[in-house]
Protein backbone atom coordinates (compact mmCIF):
# COMPACT_ATOMS: atom_id res chain seq x y z
CA UNK A 1 0.00 0.00 0.00
CA UNK A 2 1.48 3.34 -0.93
CA UNK A 3 1.92 5.66 1.99
CA UNK A 4 0.36 9.10 2.03
CA UNK A 5 3.10 10.67 4.07
CA UNK A 6 6.86 10.15 4.05
CA UNK A 7 8.96 11.53 6.87
CA UNK A 8 12.63 11.83 5.85
CA UNK A 9 15.17 12.01 8.65
CA UNK A 10 18.89 12.13 7.88
CA UNK A 11 20.90 10.97 10.89
CA UNK A 12 24.55 11.12 11.71
CA UNK A 13 25.73 9.65 15.00
CA UNK A 14 22.38 10.05 16.71
CA UNK A 15 21.92 6.63 18.24
CA UNK A 16 20.73 8.05 21.56
CA UNK A 17 18.08 10.28 20.04
CA UNK A 18 16.43 7.79 17.73
CA UNK A 19 14.25 5.71 20.06
CA UNK A 20 12.68 8.83 21.56
CA UNK A 21 12.29 10.36 18.13
CA UNK A 22 10.45 7.29 16.91
CA UNK A 23 8.08 7.45 19.89
CA UNK A 24 7.26 11.05 19.16
CA UNK A 25 6.77 10.33 15.49
CA UNK A 26 4.43 7.48 16.21
CA UNK A 27 2.37 9.71 18.45
CA UNK A 28 2.36 12.54 15.94
CA UNK A 29 1.07 10.53 12.99
CA UNK A 30 -1.77 8.94 14.95
CA UNK A 31 -4.03 11.86 14.14
CA UNK A 32 -3.16 11.82 10.46
CA UNK A 33 -5.27 9.82 8.06
CA UNK A 34 -3.48 7.54 5.69
CA UNK A 35 -0.34 5.46 6.10
CA UNK A 36 2.98 7.03 6.91
CA UNK A 37 6.53 5.81 6.31
CA UNK A 38 9.56 6.90 8.29
CA UNK A 39 12.71 7.02 6.19
CA UNK A 40 15.87 7.20 8.27
CA UNK A 41 19.02 7.81 6.26
CA UNK A 42 22.17 6.82 8.11
CA UNK A 43 24.79 9.20 6.75
CA UNK A 44 27.82 7.05 7.48
CA UNK A 45 27.51 7.12 11.25
CA UNK A 46 30.40 5.79 13.26
CA UNK A 47 28.44 4.89 16.37
CA UNK A 48 25.62 2.42 16.98
CA UNK A 49 23.11 4.31 14.86
CA UNK A 50 22.63 1.62 12.21
CA UNK A 51 22.32 -1.11 14.80
CA UNK A 52 19.69 0.86 16.74
CA UNK A 53 17.87 1.57 13.49
CA UNK A 54 17.63 -2.07 12.47
CA UNK A 55 16.36 -2.97 15.93
CA UNK A 56 13.71 -0.26 15.83
CA UNK A 57 12.63 -1.43 12.42
CA UNK A 58 11.59 -4.75 13.82
CA UNK A 59 9.18 -3.00 16.17
CA UNK A 60 7.64 -0.66 13.61
CA UNK A 61 7.36 -1.80 10.03
CA UNK A 62 6.78 1.74 8.85
CA UNK A 63 10.47 2.42 9.24
CA UNK A 64 12.69 2.27 6.18
CA UNK A 65 16.40 2.33 6.89
CA UNK A 66 18.96 3.40 4.32
CA UNK A 67 22.67 3.39 4.98
CA UNK A 68 25.15 5.42 2.96
CA UNK A 69 28.69 4.23 2.41
CA UNK A 70 30.30 7.15 4.12
CA UNK A 71 29.34 10.56 5.41
CA UNK A 72 28.07 12.45 2.37
CA UNK A 73 26.53 15.44 4.10
CA UNK A 74 23.05 16.48 5.07
CA UNK A 75 21.95 17.51 1.63
CA UNK A 76 22.95 14.22 0.06
CA UNK A 77 21.33 12.19 2.82
CA UNK A 78 18.18 14.22 2.47
CA UNK A 79 18.23 13.82 -1.31
CA UNK A 80 18.56 10.08 -0.85
CA UNK A 81 15.57 9.98 1.45
CA UNK A 82 13.50 12.14 -0.86
CA UNK A 83 14.40 10.02 -3.89
CA UNK A 84 13.14 6.87 -2.20
CA UNK A 85 10.06 8.43 -0.63
CA UNK A 86 6.77 7.12 -1.92
CA UNK A 87 4.30 9.38 -0.20
CA UNK A 88 2.38 12.23 -1.77
CA UNK A 89 3.61 14.52 0.95
CA UNK A 90 7.18 14.57 2.20
CA UNK A 91 8.27 16.02 5.52
CA UNK A 92 11.96 16.48 6.29
CA UNK A 93 13.35 16.99 9.75
CA UNK A 94 16.47 16.73 11.89
CA UNK A 95 17.30 13.56 13.76
CA UNK A 96 18.56 15.23 16.92
CA UNK A 97 15.22 15.83 18.66
CA UNK A 98 15.47 19.59 18.18
CA UNK A 99 12.47 19.51 15.85
CA UNK A 100 9.15 18.53 17.37
CA UNK A 101 7.23 15.88 15.40
CA UNK A 102 4.00 17.21 16.90
CA UNK A 103 4.31 20.13 14.48
CA UNK A 104 3.92 17.82 11.49
CA UNK A 105 0.13 17.89 11.64
CA UNK A 106 0.02 21.69 11.49
CA UNK A 107 2.47 21.73 8.59
CA UNK A 108 0.27 19.35 6.66
CA UNK A 109 -2.79 21.48 7.30
CA UNK A 110 -1.10 24.55 5.87
CA UNK A 111 0.12 22.48 2.92
CA UNK A 112 -3.41 21.33 2.23
CA UNK A 113 -4.52 24.94 1.91
CA UNK A 114 -2.96 24.97 -1.53
CA UNK A 115 0.72 25.56 -0.84
CA UNK A 116 3.59 23.58 -2.23
CA UNK A 117 6.25 24.14 0.42
CA UNK A 118 5.74 24.89 4.11
CA UNK A 119 8.85 25.88 6.04
CA UNK A 120 9.22 25.68 9.76
CA UNK A 121 10.16 28.88 11.53
CA UNK A 122 11.93 28.45 14.83
CA UNK A 123 10.60 31.60 16.41
CA UNK A 124 12.03 30.76 19.81
CA UNK A 125 15.38 29.23 19.10
CA UNK A 126 17.07 27.28 21.85
CA UNK A 127 20.63 27.86 20.74
CA UNK A 128 23.60 29.98 21.75
CA UNK A 129 23.11 33.60 20.79
CA UNK A 130 26.32 34.75 19.19
CA UNK A 131 27.58 31.62 17.54
CA UNK A 132 24.34 30.23 16.21
CA UNK A 133 21.47 32.73 16.30
CA UNK A 134 23.16 35.91 15.09
CA UNK A 135 24.95 34.42 12.05
CA UNK A 136 21.68 32.71 11.27
CA UNK A 137 19.72 35.95 11.28
CA UNK A 138 22.29 37.61 9.05
CA UNK A 139 22.27 34.67 6.65
CA UNK A 140 18.49 34.56 6.48
CA UNK A 141 18.30 38.26 5.70
CA UNK A 142 20.95 37.95 3.00
CA UNK A 143 19.35 34.94 1.37
CA UNK A 144 15.97 36.61 1.43
CA UNK A 145 17.38 39.77 -0.06
CA UNK A 146 19.34 38.11 -2.84
CA UNK A 147 16.89 35.43 -3.87
CA UNK A 148 13.71 37.37 -3.35
CA UNK A 149 12.27 34.58 -1.24
CA UNK A 150 12.04 36.06 2.24
CA UNK A 151 11.80 33.58 5.05
CA UNK A 152 12.61 34.10 8.68
CA UNK A 153 14.36 30.79 9.10
CA UNK A 154 16.09 29.10 6.21
CA UNK A 155 18.04 26.85 8.51
CA UNK A 156 15.10 24.97 9.97
CA UNK A 157 15.11 21.43 8.63
CA UNK A 158 11.46 20.83 9.48
CA UNK A 159 9.64 21.42 6.23
CA UNK A 160 6.74 19.85 4.39
CA UNK A 161 6.56 19.50 0.63
CA UNK A 162 4.25 18.17 -1.98
CA UNK A 163 6.21 15.24 -3.33
CA UNK A 164 6.04 16.26 -6.99
CA UNK A 165 7.47 19.67 -6.18
CA UNK A 166 10.45 18.56 -4.10
CA UNK A 167 11.33 15.65 -6.34
CA UNK A 168 11.69 18.08 -9.16
CA UNK A 169 13.89 20.54 -7.31
CA UNK A 170 17.63 20.12 -7.89
CA UNK A 171 19.23 19.12 -4.62
CA UNK A 172 22.99 18.70 -4.33
CA UNK A 173 26.16 19.96 -2.66
CA UNK A 174 25.13 21.81 0.50
CA UNK A 175 21.91 23.26 -0.83
CA UNK A 176 19.40 21.81 1.59
CA UNK A 177 18.91 25.10 3.34
CA UNK A 178 18.14 26.78 0.01
CA UNK A 179 15.41 24.41 -1.08
CA UNK A 180 12.62 26.95 -0.60
CA UNK A 181 14.44 29.45 -2.82
CA UNK A 182 15.25 26.82 -5.43
CA UNK A 183 11.76 25.40 -5.54
CA UNK A 184 10.52 28.81 -6.56
CA UNK A 185 12.20 28.00 -9.89
CA UNK A 186 9.54 25.38 -10.49
CA UNK A 187 6.87 27.89 -9.65
CA UNK A 188 6.15 26.54 -6.19
CA UNK A 189 4.37 28.59 -3.57
CA UNK A 190 6.32 28.81 -0.35
CA UNK A 191 4.98 29.77 3.08
CA UNK A 192 6.33 29.58 6.59
CA UNK A 193 4.85 28.45 9.89
CA UNK A 194 6.05 28.89 13.45
CA UNK A 195 7.23 25.67 15.00
CA UNK A 196 8.68 24.53 18.29
CA UNK A 197 12.34 24.18 18.90
CA UNK A 198 14.01 22.25 21.68
CA UNK A 199 17.51 22.46 23.02
CA UNK A 200 19.90 19.74 22.01
CA UNK A 201 19.74 16.83 24.41
CA UNK A 202 22.24 14.29 23.20
CA UNK A 203 25.48 14.47 21.32
CA UNK A 204 27.24 17.53 19.95
CA UNK A 205 26.27 19.95 17.25
CA UNK A 206 27.65 19.22 13.83
CA UNK A 207 27.87 22.82 12.65
CA UNK A 208 30.59 25.40 13.09
CA UNK A 209 31.42 28.90 11.97
CA UNK A 210 34.17 27.90 9.56
CA UNK A 211 31.66 27.04 6.91
CA UNK A 212 30.65 30.68 6.54
CA UNK A 213 32.61 31.43 3.41
CA UNK A 214 31.25 28.37 1.67
CA UNK A 215 27.73 29.41 2.60
CA UNK A 216 28.47 32.90 1.31
CA UNK A 217 29.44 31.51 -2.09
CA UNK A 218 26.38 29.30 -2.03
CA UNK A 219 24.16 32.29 -1.40
CA UNK A 220 25.65 34.03 -4.42
CA UNK A 221 25.17 30.94 -6.55
CA UNK A 222 21.63 30.24 -5.47
CA UNK A 223 20.45 33.80 -5.85
CA UNK A 224 21.95 34.00 -9.32
CA UNK A 225 20.49 30.65 -10.25
CA UNK A 226 17.07 31.64 -9.04
CA UNK A 227 17.16 34.85 -10.98
CA UNK A 228 19.01 33.89 -14.12
CA UNK A 229 19.03 30.12 -14.54
CA UNK A 230 16.50 30.41 -17.29
CA UNK A 231 18.15 33.31 -19.03
CA UNK A 232 21.86 33.49 -18.16
CA UNK A 233 22.55 35.84 -21.03
CA UNK A 234 20.74 38.58 -19.13
CA UNK A 235 23.25 38.34 -16.31
CA UNK A 236 26.46 37.93 -18.28
CA UNK A 237 25.26 40.27 -20.97
CA UNK A 238 24.65 42.98 -18.41
CA UNK A 239 28.11 42.56 -16.91
CA UNK A 240 29.59 42.54 -20.36
CA UNK A 241 27.86 45.79 -21.20
CA UNK A 242 29.16 47.42 -18.04
CA UNK A 243 32.67 46.35 -18.88
CA UNK A 244 32.26 47.50 -22.44
CA UNK A 245 31.14 50.93 -21.31
CA UNK A 246 34.08 51.27 -18.96
CA UNK A 247 36.44 50.21 -21.74
CA UNK A 248 35.03 52.52 -24.36
CA UNK A 249 34.93 55.52 -22.05
CA UNK A 250 38.54 54.93 -20.97
CA UNK A 251 39.59 54.56 -24.57
CA UNK A 252 37.94 57.78 -25.58
CA UNK A 253 39.50 59.57 -22.67
CA UNK A 254 42.93 58.30 -23.77
CA UNK A 255 42.39 59.44 -27.33
CA UNK A 256 41.44 62.82 -26.04
CA UNK A 257 44.60 62.95 -23.98
CA UNK A 258 46.67 61.73 -26.91
CA UNK A 259 45.19 64.40 -29.13
CA UNK A 260 46.39 67.04 -26.70
CA UNK A 261 49.68 65.64 -25.47
CA UNK A 262 50.81 63.23 -28.24
CA UNK A 263 52.20 60.93 -25.60
CA UNK A 264 50.68 57.56 -24.85
CA UNK A 265 53.46 55.97 -22.86
CA UNK A 266 52.70 57.20 -19.35
CA UNK A 267 49.06 56.37 -19.43
CA UNK A 268 46.85 54.60 -17.01
CA UNK A 269 43.92 54.51 -19.29
CA UNK A 270 44.83 52.69 -22.51
CA UNK A 271 46.04 49.60 -20.70
CA UNK A 272 42.96 49.43 -18.50
CA UNK A 273 40.73 50.21 -21.45
CA UNK A 274 42.07 47.29 -23.41
CA UNK A 275 41.65 44.95 -20.47
CA UNK A 276 38.13 46.16 -19.86
CA UNK A 277 37.25 45.52 -23.47
CA UNK A 278 38.82 42.08 -23.20
CA UNK A 279 36.69 41.36 -20.16
CA UNK A 280 33.58 42.50 -21.99
CA UNK A 281 34.32 40.05 -24.78
CA UNK A 282 35.00 37.25 -22.31
CA UNK A 283 31.79 37.77 -20.39
CA UNK A 284 29.83 37.82 -23.60
CA UNK A 285 31.29 34.51 -24.66
CA UNK A 286 30.66 32.96 -21.26
CA UNK A 287 27.06 34.13 -21.44
CA UNK A 288 26.66 32.50 -24.82
CA UNK A 289 28.22 29.32 -23.52
CA UNK A 290 25.76 29.33 -20.68
CA UNK A 291 22.87 29.64 -23.10
CA UNK A 292 24.31 26.84 -25.16
CA UNK A 293 24.52 24.73 -22.06
CA UNK A 294 20.88 25.30 -21.32
CA UNK A 295 19.59 24.52 -24.78
CA UNK A 296 21.18 21.09 -24.63
CA UNK A 297 19.11 20.15 -21.64
CA UNK A 298 15.64 18.76 -22.27
CA UNK A 299 14.79 19.15 -18.65
CA UNK A 300 14.46 22.84 -19.14
CA UNK A 301 10.78 22.44 -19.73
CA UNK A 302 10.48 20.46 -16.53
CA UNK A 303 11.74 23.42 -14.62
CA UNK A 304 8.61 25.27 -15.55
CA UNK A 305 5.46 25.75 -13.60
CA UNK A 306 4.23 23.13 -11.19
CA UNK A 307 0.85 21.79 -12.18
CA UNK A 308 -1.77 22.18 -9.55
CA UNK A 309 -4.48 19.57 -9.27
Amino acid at each position, binding site marked *: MTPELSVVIPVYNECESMPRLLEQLQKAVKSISGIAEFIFVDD*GSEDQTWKVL*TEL*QVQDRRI*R*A*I*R*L*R*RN*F*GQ*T*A*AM*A*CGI*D*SARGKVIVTMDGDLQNDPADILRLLEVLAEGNDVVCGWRSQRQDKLWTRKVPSIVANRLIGFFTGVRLHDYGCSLKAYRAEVIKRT*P*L*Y*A*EFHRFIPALSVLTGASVVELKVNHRARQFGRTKYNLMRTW*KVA*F*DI*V*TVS*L*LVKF*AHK*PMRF*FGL*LSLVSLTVGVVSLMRSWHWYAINADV*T*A*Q*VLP*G*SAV*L*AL*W*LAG*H*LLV*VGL*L*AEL*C*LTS*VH*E*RSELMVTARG
Partner: protein
Amino acid sequence: MASVEQVNQKGAPDLSVVVPLGSRYEDLGTLCRDLRRVLVPFGCYEVIIVDDANGPATRRDVQAVRKEYSEVRVLTLARRMGESTALGLGTQAARGAIIVTVDPYLHVSLDELPAMLEPLRGEYDLVCGWRKTQGSGLARIASNGFNTVARWLTQVPVHDLNCRMRAMRREVLQDIPMYGDLHRFLPIFAVRRGFRLHEVVVTQQPGKQEVGAFNPSSYINRLMDLLTLAFLTRFMKRPLHLFGLIGMAGLVIGAALGAYLGYERLVLGIAIGNRPLLLLAVLLVVVGIQLGSIGLLGELMIFTHARELKDYVVKEER
Protein backbone atom coordinates in the same frame (compact mmCIF):
# COMPACT_ATOMS: atom_id res chain seq x y z
CA MET B 1 33.77 -15.30 0.60
CA ALA B 2 32.52 -12.08 2.14
CA SER B 3 28.96 -10.91 1.58
CA VAL B 4 27.95 -10.31 -2.00
CA GLU B 5 24.75 -8.65 -3.04
CA GLN B 6 24.37 -10.29 -6.41
CA VAL B 7 22.68 -13.57 -7.12
CA ASN B 8 25.26 -16.21 -7.86
CA GLN B 9 24.04 -17.86 -10.99
CA LYS B 10 25.04 -21.32 -11.88
CA GLY B 11 28.33 -21.35 -13.71
CA ALA B 12 29.40 -17.89 -12.68
CA PRO B 13 32.87 -18.05 -11.17
CA ASP B 14 33.71 -16.71 -7.72
CA LEU B 15 36.68 -14.79 -8.95
CA SER B 16 37.86 -13.16 -12.17
CA VAL B 17 41.45 -12.35 -13.02
CA VAL B 18 41.88 -9.67 -15.65
CA VAL B 19 45.18 -9.51 -17.56
CA PRO B 20 45.65 -6.66 -20.04
CA LEU B 21 48.31 -7.42 -22.63
CA GLY B 22 50.53 -4.68 -23.94
CA SER B 23 53.42 -5.19 -26.30
CA ARG B 24 55.55 -6.82 -23.65
CA TYR B 25 54.42 -9.60 -21.41
CA GLU B 26 55.62 -12.66 -19.62
CA ASP B 27 54.99 -16.11 -20.89
CA LEU B 28 51.27 -16.62 -20.68
CA GLY B 29 51.54 -20.30 -19.99
CA THR B 30 53.60 -19.66 -16.87
CA LEU B 31 51.14 -17.02 -15.83
CA CYS B 32 48.20 -19.37 -15.99
CA ARG B 33 50.07 -22.16 -14.29
CA ASP B 34 51.06 -19.91 -11.43
CA LEU B 35 47.52 -18.63 -11.13
CA ARG B 36 46.25 -22.17 -10.86
CA ARG B 37 48.71 -22.91 -8.13
CA VAL B 38 48.05 -19.77 -6.15
CA LEU B 39 44.28 -19.58 -6.48
CA VAL B 40 43.48 -23.11 -5.43
CA PRO B 41 41.83 -22.21 -2.10
CA PHE B 42 39.69 -19.48 -3.64
CA GLY B 43 37.07 -21.41 -5.50
CA CYS B 44 36.46 -21.47 -9.19
CA TYR B 45 37.81 -18.59 -11.20
CA GLU B 46 38.17 -17.31 -14.75
CA VAL B 47 41.04 -15.55 -16.44
CA ILE B 48 40.23 -12.77 -18.86
CA ILE B 49 43.05 -11.86 -21.18
CA VAL B 50 42.62 -8.57 -23.00
CA ASP B 51 44.67 -8.40 -26.18
CA ASP B 52 45.25 -4.72 -26.80
CA ALA B 53 45.50 -5.01 -30.60
CA ASN B 54 48.94 -6.52 -30.46
CA GLY B 55 49.11 -8.31 -33.75
CA PRO B 56 49.07 -11.89 -34.98
CA ALA B 57 51.93 -13.17 -32.84
CA THR B 58 50.13 -12.28 -29.65
CA ARG B 59 46.90 -13.70 -30.97
CA ARG B 60 48.63 -17.01 -31.54
CA ASP B 61 50.09 -17.05 -28.04
CA VAL B 62 46.74 -16.24 -26.56
CA GLN B 63 44.92 -18.91 -28.54
CA ALA B 64 47.51 -21.46 -27.49
CA VAL B 65 46.95 -20.63 -23.86
CA ARG B 66 43.21 -20.73 -24.28
CA LYS B 67 43.35 -24.22 -25.66
CA GLU B 68 45.42 -25.44 -22.80
CA TYR B 69 43.64 -23.69 -19.95
CA SER B 70 39.88 -23.84 -20.05
CA GLU B 71 39.36 -21.06 -17.56
CA VAL B 72 40.77 -18.50 -19.97
CA ARG B 73 38.52 -16.12 -21.89
CA VAL B 74 39.88 -13.74 -24.47
CA LEU B 75 38.94 -10.20 -25.37
CA THR B 76 40.61 -8.92 -28.51
CA LEU B 77 40.53 -5.21 -29.10
CA ALA B 78 40.43 -3.98 -32.67
CA ARG B 79 42.40 -0.86 -31.92
CA ARG B 80 45.07 -0.10 -29.39
CA MET B 81 43.35 1.50 -26.41
CA GLY B 82 46.03 1.65 -23.77
CA GLU B 83 46.48 -0.54 -20.74
CA SER B 84 44.09 1.26 -18.48
CA THR B 85 41.22 1.15 -20.96
CA ALA B 86 41.95 -2.47 -21.79
CA LEU B 87 41.76 -3.24 -18.11
CA GLY B 88 38.47 -1.44 -17.84
CA LEU B 89 36.94 -3.39 -20.69
CA GLY B 90 38.19 -6.61 -19.19
CA THR B 91 36.58 -5.85 -15.84
CA GLN B 92 33.31 -5.11 -17.55
CA ALA B 93 33.30 -8.59 -19.03
CA ALA B 94 34.20 -10.20 -15.73
CA ARG B 95 31.57 -12.31 -14.03
CA GLY B 96 33.12 -13.07 -10.68
CA ALA B 97 32.08 -11.55 -7.39
CA ILE B 98 35.70 -10.71 -6.74
CA ILE B 99 37.82 -9.17 -9.47
CA VAL B 100 41.60 -9.23 -9.53
CA THR B 101 43.69 -7.18 -11.92
CA VAL B 102 47.22 -8.24 -12.74
CA ASP B 103 49.94 -6.69 -14.81
CA PRO B 104 51.36 -9.03 -17.41
CA TYR B 105 55.00 -8.23 -16.81
CA LEU B 106 54.68 -9.73 -13.37
CA HIS B 107 56.50 -7.01 -11.51
CA VAL B 108 54.86 -8.43 -8.51
CA SER B 109 54.94 -12.13 -8.00
CA LEU B 110 51.61 -13.90 -8.12
CA ASP B 111 52.47 -15.49 -4.80
CA GLU B 112 51.45 -12.22 -3.21
CA LEU B 113 47.86 -12.69 -4.40
CA PRO B 114 46.50 -14.64 -1.42
CA ALA B 115 47.72 -11.91 0.94
CA MET B 116 45.81 -9.42 -1.16
CA LEU B 117 42.64 -11.45 -1.26
CA GLU B 118 42.57 -12.00 2.49
CA PRO B 119 41.37 -8.51 3.51
CA LEU B 120 38.38 -8.88 1.20
CA ARG B 121 37.01 -11.57 3.46
CA GLY B 122 36.73 -8.93 6.12
CA GLU B 123 35.42 -5.43 5.79
CA TYR B 124 37.53 -4.09 2.96
CA ASP B 125 36.22 -3.51 -0.54
CA LEU B 126 39.41 -2.77 -2.46
CA VAL B 127 42.96 -3.98 -1.93
CA CYS B 128 45.87 -2.38 -3.76
CA GLY B 129 49.47 -3.38 -3.97
CA TRP B 130 52.08 -1.00 -2.61
CA ARG B 131 55.57 -1.45 -3.95
CA LYS B 132 57.51 0.11 -1.16
CA THR B 133 60.90 -1.27 -2.01
CA GLN B 134 63.54 -1.05 -4.64
CA GLY B 135 63.63 0.51 -8.06
CA SER B 136 66.24 2.71 -9.60
CA GLY B 137 66.77 6.33 -8.63
CA LEU B 138 65.00 8.58 -11.08
CA ALA B 139 62.03 6.37 -11.70
CA ARG B 140 61.53 5.87 -8.01
CA ILE B 141 61.66 9.58 -7.24
CA ALA B 142 59.23 10.41 -10.02
CA SER B 143 56.87 7.72 -8.86
CA ASN B 144 57.00 8.77 -5.23
CA GLY B 145 56.58 12.39 -6.18
CA PHE B 146 53.58 11.54 -8.30
CA ASN B 147 51.89 9.62 -5.53
CA THR B 148 52.59 12.33 -3.00
CA VAL B 149 51.05 14.96 -5.25
CA ALA B 150 48.08 12.68 -5.78
CA ARG B 151 47.56 12.31 -2.06
CA TRP B 152 47.77 16.01 -1.52
CA LEU B 153 45.42 16.93 -4.34
CA THR B 154 42.76 14.34 -3.70
CA GLN B 155 43.05 13.84 0.07
CA VAL B 156 43.04 10.08 -0.44
CA PRO B 157 45.79 8.07 1.32
CA VAL B 158 46.99 6.02 -1.63
CA HIS B 159 50.67 5.25 -2.03
CA ASP B 160 51.19 3.43 -5.28
CA LEU B 161 48.83 4.40 -8.06
CA ASN B 162 50.95 2.71 -10.70
CA CYS B 163 50.73 -0.76 -9.25
CA ARG B 164 48.29 -2.67 -11.35
CA MET B 165 47.93 -5.55 -8.94
CA ARG B 166 44.59 -4.99 -7.29
CA ALA B 167 41.74 -7.03 -5.90
CA MET B 168 38.25 -5.71 -5.41
CA ARG B 169 34.64 -6.60 -4.87
CA ARG B 170 32.44 -6.34 -7.87
CA GLU B 171 30.39 -3.48 -6.38
CA VAL B 172 33.39 -1.19 -6.48
CA LEU B 173 33.39 -1.28 -10.26
CA GLN B 174 29.66 -1.20 -10.67
CA ASP B 175 29.12 1.86 -8.57
CA ILE B 176 31.83 3.97 -10.13
CA PRO B 177 31.41 5.54 -13.52
CA MET B 178 34.85 5.42 -15.13
CA TYR B 179 35.99 5.71 -18.66
CA GLY B 180 39.18 4.91 -20.45
CA ASP B 181 42.36 5.83 -18.74
CA LEU B 182 40.81 6.65 -15.40
CA HIS B 183 41.18 3.08 -14.22
CA ARG B 184 44.60 4.02 -13.05
CA PHE B 185 42.94 6.18 -10.45
CA LEU B 186 40.44 3.61 -9.27
CA PRO B 187 41.51 3.75 -5.59
CA ILE B 188 40.82 7.48 -5.51
CA PHE B 189 37.37 7.13 -6.97
CA ALA B 190 36.58 4.24 -4.69
CA VAL B 191 37.57 5.98 -1.49
CA ARG B 192 35.65 9.10 -2.43
CA ARG B 193 32.56 6.95 -2.92
CA GLY B 194 32.96 5.49 0.51
CA PHE B 195 34.51 2.10 -0.28
CA ARG B 196 37.17 0.90 2.11
CA LEU B 197 40.70 0.68 0.81
CA HIS B 198 43.50 -1.47 2.14
CA GLU B 199 47.04 -1.43 0.85
CA VAL B 200 49.25 -4.49 1.00
CA VAL B 201 52.97 -4.03 0.80
CA VAL B 202 54.37 -6.14 -2.01
CA THR B 203 57.86 -6.62 -3.31
CA GLN B 204 58.86 -5.66 -6.77
CA GLN B 205 60.57 -8.53 -8.48
CA PRO B 206 64.23 -7.78 -8.94
CA GLY B 207 65.47 -7.27 -12.44
CA LYS B 208 62.07 -6.39 -13.83
CA GLN B 209 61.89 -2.76 -14.65
CA GLU B 210 58.72 -1.21 -15.86
CA VAL B 211 58.51 -0.64 -19.58
CA GLY B 212 59.35 2.99 -20.23
CA ALA B 213 59.84 3.49 -16.51
CA PHE B 214 60.76 7.09 -16.72
CA ASN B 215 58.87 8.61 -19.59
CA PRO B 216 58.45 12.34 -19.03
CA SER B 217 55.55 12.89 -21.40
CA SER B 218 53.52 10.14 -19.84
CA TYR B 219 54.10 11.61 -16.41
CA ILE B 220 52.91 14.98 -17.62
CA ASN B 221 49.80 13.36 -19.02
CA ARG B 222 49.21 11.63 -15.75
CA LEU B 223 49.67 14.88 -13.88
CA MET B 224 47.01 16.46 -16.05
CA ASP B 225 44.74 13.53 -15.36
CA LEU B 226 45.42 13.94 -11.69
CA LEU B 227 44.49 17.59 -11.76
CA THR B 228 41.25 16.78 -13.54
CA LEU B 229 40.60 14.03 -11.06
CA ALA B 230 41.29 16.18 -8.04
CA PHE B 231 39.01 18.84 -9.40
CA LEU B 232 36.25 16.39 -10.22
CA THR B 233 36.32 14.59 -6.94
CA ARG B 234 36.57 17.61 -4.71
CA PHE B 235 34.82 20.36 -6.55
CA MET B 236 32.51 18.65 -8.98
CA LYS B 237 29.39 19.79 -7.31
CA ARG B 238 30.72 23.15 -6.29
CA PRO B 239 32.91 24.66 -8.99
CA LEU B 240 32.38 28.12 -7.65
CA HIS B 241 34.15 27.21 -4.43
CA LEU B 242 37.37 26.70 -6.33
CA PHE B 243 37.10 29.30 -9.07
CA GLY B 244 35.37 31.79 -6.89
CA LEU B 245 38.00 31.49 -4.18
CA ILE B 246 40.90 32.04 -6.56
CA GLY B 247 38.95 34.69 -8.43
CA MET B 248 38.16 36.55 -5.22
CA ALA B 249 41.77 36.35 -4.16
CA GLY B 250 42.81 37.89 -7.46
CA LEU B 251 40.11 40.51 -7.23
CA VAL B 252 40.95 41.49 -3.68
CA ILE B 253 44.68 41.72 -4.28
CA GLY B 254 44.10 43.61 -7.50
CA ALA B 255 41.73 46.00 -5.83
CA ALA B 256 44.14 46.54 -2.95
CA LEU B 257 46.99 47.30 -5.33
CA GLY B 258 44.70 49.54 -7.30
CA ALA B 259 43.70 51.40 -4.16
CA TYR B 260 47.32 51.84 -3.18
CA LEU B 261 48.21 53.16 -6.62
CA GLY B 262 45.15 55.37 -6.62
CA TYR B 263 46.27 56.83 -3.33
CA GLU B 264 49.70 57.50 -4.77
CA ARG B 265 48.29 59.22 -7.81
CA LEU B 266 45.43 61.16 -6.34
CA VAL B 267 46.80 62.06 -2.94
CA LEU B 268 50.55 62.09 -3.43
CA GLY B 269 50.46 63.21 -7.05
CA ILE B 270 52.95 60.62 -8.25
CA ALA B 271 52.49 59.57 -11.86
CA ILE B 272 51.53 55.94 -12.05
CA GLY B 273 50.99 55.50 -15.76
CA ASN B 274 54.23 53.69 -16.42
CA ARG B 275 54.17 51.49 -13.38
CA PRO B 276 54.09 47.75 -14.09
CA LEU B 277 52.28 47.45 -10.79
CA LEU B 278 49.31 49.17 -12.35
CA LEU B 279 49.16 46.62 -15.10
CA LEU B 280 49.34 43.87 -12.54
CA ALA B 281 46.52 45.34 -10.50
CA VAL B 282 44.21 45.68 -13.48
CA LEU B 283 45.17 42.24 -14.72
CA LEU B 284 44.41 40.67 -11.35
CA VAL B 285 41.02 42.32 -11.24
CA VAL B 286 40.21 41.16 -14.74
CA VAL B 287 41.40 37.62 -14.13
CA GLY B 288 39.46 37.56 -10.89
CA ILE B 289 36.25 38.47 -12.65
CA GLN B 290 36.99 35.99 -15.41
CA LEU B 291 37.52 33.14 -12.99
CA GLY B 292 34.42 34.10 -11.11
CA SER B 293 32.37 34.05 -14.29
CA ILE B 294 33.74 30.64 -15.21
CA GLY B 295 32.88 29.42 -11.75
CA LEU B 296 29.33 30.63 -12.24
CA LEU B 297 29.19 28.95 -15.63
CA GLY B 298 30.26 25.75 -13.97
CA GLU B 299 27.57 26.13 -11.37
CA LEU B 300 24.98 26.59 -14.06
CA MET B 301 26.15 23.43 -15.79
CA ILE B 302 25.94 21.42 -12.61
CA PHE B 303 22.58 22.87 -11.83
CA THR B 304 21.08 21.88 -15.14
CA HIS B 305 22.38 18.35 -14.85
CA ALA B 306 21.82 18.02 -11.13
CA ARG B 307 19.17 15.38 -11.52
CA GLU B 308 21.50 12.98 -13.29
CA LEU B 309 24.30 13.28 -10.79
CA LYS B 310 23.63 11.40 -7.61
CA ASP B 311 25.57 12.70 -4.68
CA TYR B 312 25.30 9.70 -2.45
CA VAL B 313 26.15 6.02 -2.56
CA VAL B 314 23.82 3.62 -0.81
CA LYS B 315 25.37 0.74 1.05
CA GLU B 316 22.31 -1.05 2.43
CA GLU B 317 18.62 -0.59 2.36
CA ARG B 318 16.01 -2.35 4.44
